[in-house]
C-alpha cells in the first residue's frame, strides 16, 4: 500500500529531507525500506549530522529513527503516512492536435484590429433629455 513510484535509493544517493514530516523522507528513504536499510541509513547519516556539529538535524533524524526502528512503531507510522501516487502508466491513446491554421483563427486575428476588440464606447454615448 505504501510503495513509492521509484526504487529505493542506494546509500550514496541518500538525500535526507530534514523539513519533512515523513520519517522515511527525513532519513532519505522510500516507504519500502526494510529494517536493515533504515538502520544503515541512520548510522550513515549520523556520521554527517553528528550531535556535536548538527544537534538540530541529529535530533530530527533520531526522532525519525525511533519511529521506524521497531516493528510495531513502524507499523503505526506506516499507517499514518500519506500514500504516494502509484507510477503513472502513460496513456495508450494520445489526444489529437489541431495544428493547421483555421480561417476562423485568421478572422479572429483580423477582428482584433477592429472595433470588435473594443469593450467600451464612451464617444458613442449621447446625452438624454428628460
Amino acid at each position, binding site marked *: *500500500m505504501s510503495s513509492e513510484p521509484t526504487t529505493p535509493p542506494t546509500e550514496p544517493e541518500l538525500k535526507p529531507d530534514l523539513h519533512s514530516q515523513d520519517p522515511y523522507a527525513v532519513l532519505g528513504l522510500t516507504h519500502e525500506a526494510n529494517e536493515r536499510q533504515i538502520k544503515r541509513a541512520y548510522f550513515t547519516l549520523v556520521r554527517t549530522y553528528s550531535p556535536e556539529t548538527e544537534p538540530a538535524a541529529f535530533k530530527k533524524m533520531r526522532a525519525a529513527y525511533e519511529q521506524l526502528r521497531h516493528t510495531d512503531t513502524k507499523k503505526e507510522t506506516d499507517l499514518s503516512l*500519506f500514500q504516494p*501516487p502509484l507510477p503513472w502508466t*502513460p496513456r*495508450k491513446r494520445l*489526444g*489529437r492536435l489541431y495544428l493547421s*491554421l483555421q480561417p476562423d483563427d485568421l478572422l479572429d486575428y483580423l477582428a482584433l484590429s477592429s472595433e470588435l476588440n473594443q469593450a467600451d464606447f464612451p464617444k458613442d454615448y449621447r446625452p*438624454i433629455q*428628460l
Partner: protein
Amino acid sequence: MKRRKNKPKRTDQSAADLRRNGLRAFQQGQYAAAVQIWERIPNTLVDPRLQAALAEGYFRLSHTQKEPQQRYQFSQKAAALQPGDPLYQYHLGLAAHKQKLYPEAITAYEKVLTNQTLAPRVAYPLALALAATAKSVKNHPVWQHLTAEQQLLLEQIQKRPFAPTLTTPLWQGVAAAQEERYPDAAALLQQASHNSHEAPLAHLMLGNIAARQEAWEQAIHHWQEAVKRGLRPQNLPANLSEVSCRLAEARLQQGNVEGAVGLSSLLNPNPGDKGQNELSEYLLFCKGYLAARQGNFAQAQQIWTSLPQGGGGSLRLAYNIALVYEKNDLLYEAAEQWREVLRRRPRKADHPDALNNEQVSRLYRRAAQAYNRVEEYDKAIQVYKNAVKWESENLALRLDLVDCLFENGQVSAALNEIDRILDRSPDHIPALLKGGEIHAQTNPPWEHNPALSYWEKVLAIAPDHAQARQQLSLFWQDAAESNYFWAPLALSIEMLQKAAAYAPNDLNIQVKIAEVYFATKEIPKALAIIEPILQMPQVEFKVLERILSNLLHGQLFDQANALINRIETNFPVERYQFYIPIAQNCLEIPREDVAETWLEKAVAAAPPGFPIYLLIGKALIEVNNETARSVATRYLHLALKHNQAPAEVRLYLGIAAAKNGDRKSAEQEWRTARKLARRNGDQALLAQIQRAELMFGGLPSFLDGMMPPDLHSMPPQLRQMFMNILGGHLPGGFFDEDDDEF
C-alpha cells in the same frame, strides 16, 4: 369626530418621481438601476423622450457587461426601443458578431451601411462577418468601403488553400508555414512577434510549429502569449490541454512530479477524453500529496475531496482523505472515511494495495478511535468489534474495546470483554487494572468490592506495581471516608491503615488518620501522628494546610500559630488568601473572636484597590452557621461602603439572607443586584442571580433540612452528593466539582 392628523402613506411613487430617480441613477452611472426605475413608469413607450432615455440606458448598460450574451441582450433592447437609430444597430451588430451570431450581425450591419457617418466603421466588421459565413465579400456593396489592404487580406483569406502573398514578416511566415517550411516560418514569425499588432497571430503560429516539433514547453509559451494578446482560437483550449498532458507525462517519466503537477491548471479535458481525465485526476492527486507532505493539510483536503472517488484505483485517495481529515481534526469524517477505505480495499491478495489481516484490523481500530474521540460510542464499539474479528488475539485492541464499552455505560459487556482477555492471558496486568477500575467505579467502596481481587492479583504478579498499589491505597481511603458517618470510626482507622500499607510514604493518609482521632476527641493519639510529621524538614504545603485545619478545629491555637509561621516562612503564600481559610476554620468551631483577628490581618495584607471585603464576605457565606453569616454580612456591607462590585455584593447579601430564612430581604437584595447587573450589561452575573434564586429562593426549608451541621467533616462522596443536589446539576452551578471547599 376627530380629524385624522396623519395623511395615509403613499405606497407608490409617482411617474414624475420615477423619472427623476431614474435620471439621478443614470447620471451617477447606475444604468441598471436607471432602466429598472424607468421601466416601472406606466405607458413608458408613449413618451418619446422617456423611450429615448430608456434606449440610451440599455445601450450604456450593455457596455458595462462582461458576458457577451448579456451585452447582446441589452443591445437588442436599445435597438428595439429606437429601431431607426443606426448607432444602436451598429452596436447590436457588434454584440451579435462577438457571440458568433453572424446572420444577425450582418442584418444589423447592413442597416447601417447606407449611413454616411457610420459606413466607414461598419464596413470592416461587416466584411469579417461575411467572410466568416463564407459569403463573397468582393460581390457585396461593403467592398467599396474597405481599404486596399483590407480588400487584399480578405480576398486571400477567402481563397482555398490559403496562401498569403503579402510581404510583411507575419504573412510571409504564415505562407512558409502553410508550405511546411517550418524553420523559415519560425524565423519570420519570431520577427513578427516583436510587432505588437502582428504578435497575436505570430505567437499562435509559433505555438503550432513548436507543437509539430514536440517542443511542448515552447508551444505552451507561445499559445499563452497569443491568448494574453486577445486571440481566442477555437482549437486552442483542446490543443493546450493535450500538449500539457504530453509534457506532464514526459515530466512524470523523468520523475519530475512537481513539474508535472505545475501543469495541472492547464489541463482542460473534454469529458469524453478518458485518458486526459485520468491524467488530470492523477496530477491533482499528486498535487494534494505534495501539499500534505509540506504540512498544508487544508489545501490537500480541498484538492483530494474535489476529486471523484469512484473507480478501482481510488483506494489511495480514500486513504489519504481519511488521514487528512484526521490531520484537520475532522474526526467523525475521518472515521467514516476509514470505513470507506476498508469497504474499498482490494480483496485479491496479489493486488499492490492489498491489506493483510493485521492492517485491516489496525484500520478498523483507527476508525473506532476516531469515533471514540468524538464520543460516537455506539459506532466506535461496532467498529472495534470488527477490528477484534480480524485480530482476535490482539489484547491491547480488546482493551480499547473495554474502554469504549465502559465509556458508553455498558459495564457488563466491558467486564465480559475483560474476562475474554484474562481467559487468553490470565496475568495480563493492564486488563486486571482496568477490571479493578471498572469495579471500583461502579460499586461502593466497601471491603467486598471485586476491584480488590483484581488489584491484589496484580501485586501477586508484580509486588511493587506502583499503579496497583496506588489504586488500592486510594480505594481504602475512599472506603474509610465513606464509613465516616455510617460505621464505627475505628473501622475507618483500620481502612486508612490498610491504605497507608500500600502507600507508606503518603503523609496525607497519616493526617487523615489523625483527623479521625480529632473527630473522636482522642487528641493525644492525633498529636502522636501529627507531631512527627511537623518535625520533618520538608513537608508538602497541602499536608501542612490540612494539619492546620485540624489544629484549628481542635482549638490547639498555639500549635496552629506555630504552623502558620512555618508556612509563611517556607512557602510563597499570598497572605490575605491564606488568612481567609484560617478564619473560615475558626468560624466553623465557631470562634468568632479568633476568626476576627485573622480577617483583620487579611484586610491589612490585601493589595490596595483589591475587593478584599467582597472576597471575605463570599468566603464566609460558605461556612454554614449563623455566626459566620453574620460576619459575612458585615463584611459585605463594608464592601458596599467601599464600592467593591456592588451588584455582586447584593447577590451575596441575598444569599446570606436566604440562608438565614429571610426570604423577603433576599428577594430585595437580588432585585437590586439584577438592576445593577442590567445597568452594567453583566450577563454572567444575571445568570448567577437567577441560579441563586433557584437554589436559595424557593427551597429554604428543604435546604435547612438537608444542610448538615458541618460539611467539611463529611466524607467526600456524601459531600459530593450534597453539592450535586445544591448546584452541581444546574448549568454553571456555584460549586466547582474540583474545589474541595464548599
